């Protein structure tokens, strides 16, 4: 079997996700002797985190060193929290008398008292030694914060946490899985992933019944984020035929994939729309030269010959694959007009296999569904929307967050079937036939 287990520890030559206390995220390549710069959070040597399990948090020390720490970055209530910080929280809790029960008395006297100037922060950074800078800043903030004791205990904690998140020199290293890669692009440039939410990605993968060993027909306009998600569920076995509309596919996001290029080359075949729809005209005519002819070539010419030969084989293989059809799912994430696209591609999908189409907007899928209702090769066309609503998750203060991410996209799903007779509406025909049958039974 070709099964490839998902990595659980940080390894060289992989990409991983760095989570910062500010909730920012960063993709980092684990290169031997590499140095990672995290801006105000500091810098560290990549070698120091290799071998640790994903999910591990670190504190940045001086000289690019790190120290593994327990617990996560942002949870103040954590038992493993730094003692000094815990003390401060404890202190705050005792301050209950002083902290007003509600925010009623809190007068906002402007930014000046609430924040340190950038200049002050810079000086602090220079004067205190690296590791303690976060706390030094917090102390200074508490002192300079006129309104501090007037805030309620809860908001004081929240305030502290905010400051801590901003300044503590910590980070967590996480697996760069499909959800994380999606999240990275959603934050950087949501249009690149057509605004797809994690919940839409999950629903797509389930509705398409993705699993190891499947052969899937794919259109992916997210630069490979979807292809990577499919590969992640297939883990080494199966095949993707990716149809694209340019001369070459855009798989720029696949460089972050944790599958080796050789695995990707083996599993992902690409073909453009012209080759896909007009395969017989697009086949590359190719005749191998004889061994003798090859040997007589100059080495530069020889290399050229082999490149052209590889290219011809690759294109013809992809075309053969497309002609063969019978794919285990059709997965479309595209801005092409989907009603006609689906209609043109159905023939390549195997019986009883799902067709799943993602669109950032509902309208193209509404049109797809209307068209599908006439199409007897599509069973149970359905338009799904799924949204994840996050809650403020603090014990005793559970409530939906005031804002949530908008958008997230829509999914169309149908099952490919073989109608008994093309163009005949089953129900209509049934009724007519029944009448005749009834008559016959009356007559006889």
């Amino acid at each position, binding site marked *: 079997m070709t*099964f490839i*287990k*998902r990595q*659980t520890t940080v390894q060289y030559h992989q990409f991983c996700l760095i989570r910062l206390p500010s909730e920012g995220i960063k993709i980092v390549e684990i290169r031997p002797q590499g140095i990672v710069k995290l801006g105000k959070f500091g810098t560290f040597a990549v070698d120091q985190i290799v*071998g640790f*399990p994903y*999910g*591990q*948090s670190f504190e940045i020390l001086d000289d690019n060193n790190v120290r593994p720490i*327990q*617990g*996560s970055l942002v*949870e103040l209530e954590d038992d493993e929290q730094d003692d000094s910080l815990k003390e401060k929280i404890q202190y705050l809790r005792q301050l209950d008398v002083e902290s007003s029960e509600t925010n009623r008395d809190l007068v906002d006297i402007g930014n000046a008292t609430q924040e340190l100037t950038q200049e002050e922060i810079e000086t602090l950074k220079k004067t205190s030694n690296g590791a303690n800078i976060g706390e030094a800043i917090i102390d200074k903030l508490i002192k300079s914060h006129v309104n501090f004791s007037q805030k309620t205990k809860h908001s004081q904690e929240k305030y502290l946490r905010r400051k801590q998140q901003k300044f503590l020199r910590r980070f967590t290293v*996480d697996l760069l899985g*499909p*959800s994380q890669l999606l999240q990275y692009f959603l934050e950087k440039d949501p249009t690149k992933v057509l605004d797809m939410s*994690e*919940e839409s*990605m*999950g*629903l797509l993968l*389930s*509705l398409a*019944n993705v*699993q*190891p060993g499947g052969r899937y027909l794919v259109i992916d306009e997210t630069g490979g984020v979807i292809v990577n998600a499919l590969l*992640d*569920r297939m*883990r080494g076995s199966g095949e993707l035929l990716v149809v694209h509309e340019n001369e070459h596919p855009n798989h720029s996001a696949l460089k972050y994939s944790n599958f080796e290029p050789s695995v990707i080359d083996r599993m992902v075949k690409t073909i453009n729309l012209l080759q896909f729809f007009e395969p017989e005209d697009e086949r590359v005519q190719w005749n191998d030269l004889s061994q003798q002819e090859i040997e007589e070539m100059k080495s530069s010419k020889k290399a050229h010959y082999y490149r052209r030969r590889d290219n011809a084989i690759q294109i013809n293989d992809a075309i053969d694959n497309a002609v063969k059809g*019978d794919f285990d799912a059709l997965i479309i994430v595209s801005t092409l007009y989907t009603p006609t696209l689906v209609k043109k591609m159905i023939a390549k999908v195997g*019986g*009883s296999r*799902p067709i799943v189409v993602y669109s950032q907007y*509902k309208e193209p*899928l*509404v049109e797809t*569904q*209307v068209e599908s209702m006439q199409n*007897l090769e599509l*069973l*149970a066309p359905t*338009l*799904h*929307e*799924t*949204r*994840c*609503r*996050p809650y403020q998750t603090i*014990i005793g203060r*559970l409530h*939906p967050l005031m804002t949530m991410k908008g958008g997230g996209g829509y999914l169309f799903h149908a099952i*490919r*079937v*073989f109608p*008994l007779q093309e163009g005949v509406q089953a129900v209509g025909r*049934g*009724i007519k*036939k029944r009448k005749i*049958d009834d008559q016959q039974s009356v007559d006889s």
Partner: protein
Amino acid sequence: MSFIGYKDTIGEGDLVLAFLGRDAIKPIVINKEETLNTRFGSFPHAQMIGLKYGTQMASIKGYGFIHLLQPSAELWTLSLPHRTQIVYTPDSSYITQRLGITAGSRVIEAGTGSASFSHALARTVSAEGHLFTYEFHEPRFLEAKKEFEEHGLLGTPVTINHRDVCKDGFEISNYDGDVKATSVFLDLPAPWEAIAHLSQVISQDEKVGICCFSPCIEQVSKTLDALKEYGWTSVQMVEIQARRWEARQQMVRQVDDAVLRLKDVKRRKLEGIERKRRFYAEHGQPRDEDSEQEVEKRKELEKEETKVDRTEFNPFGRGLRIKDGDEAFNWIKVSKTEAEVKSHTSYLTFAFKQATPSSTT
């Protein structure tokens, strides 16, 4: 195996889902001696053998039709016999994605219930992974076990246990090796009682994720306490709001056409009045001495001469039977949510546990 892997043609002994309608999907096991009887007619299994999955089949009498589908976890969720509340695809797909469950994952699930989520999990972890599922209600345990067996999932990748996980934990004897779960899903009334027993069975070598599925916010509170007590971090509660949209076509009825129609109605009305006026001018008022015959004749004549022709102007096809999308009219495509929207299923509380450093250094 029918849920893991693919098949092209129907064979004896296969599990087939007979699709009669969206809310009527009937699982059948092909036995050439049997016949499927439905409100659409009778369908002998023998005739199904050799057909391609996805084929539409006519009943013996030829007037009813069904589709023969290959089972998938998602279709199973729509067709399974309900023994309990079940987890539906919008929730199960999100939980799978967020916990990073994939081929090779080792998942603990309690309780099994109707095994809706179990099938989806089995498909995703595939033969390389494992699903440990627990059910303390004996009849449900037996039913689920039988299903896994019939569906070719028992053993690989599913192990099912008859066990009260809140009281007796997750350690099992009917599996060779350690559980070493990498993900946990708890769908039972008191997940906080089960959380206490997890540390013995979850993997120490890697980050482990958990999702607790509870309909009430009070349950979430207790779960949060337990998660904190047992060292789970990055806790977040969310809710999945899923809906299905129904697409339709609506006729484009232009206001200008509505105005024109009113004008047309008015014109015809005036024309009628004018014709009446002309008729009376020509024939005068009816006279008392007219015989019954003459009255009838005059009535006929009046009707004939004052009649206004039916209008040709019918921009919205009134009184006609028009099918959605009729090319003689303009249409826009519209959508609305289905008649009944599931607005709350359960709260999903996620948390994670870091690997224990001792095993890494």
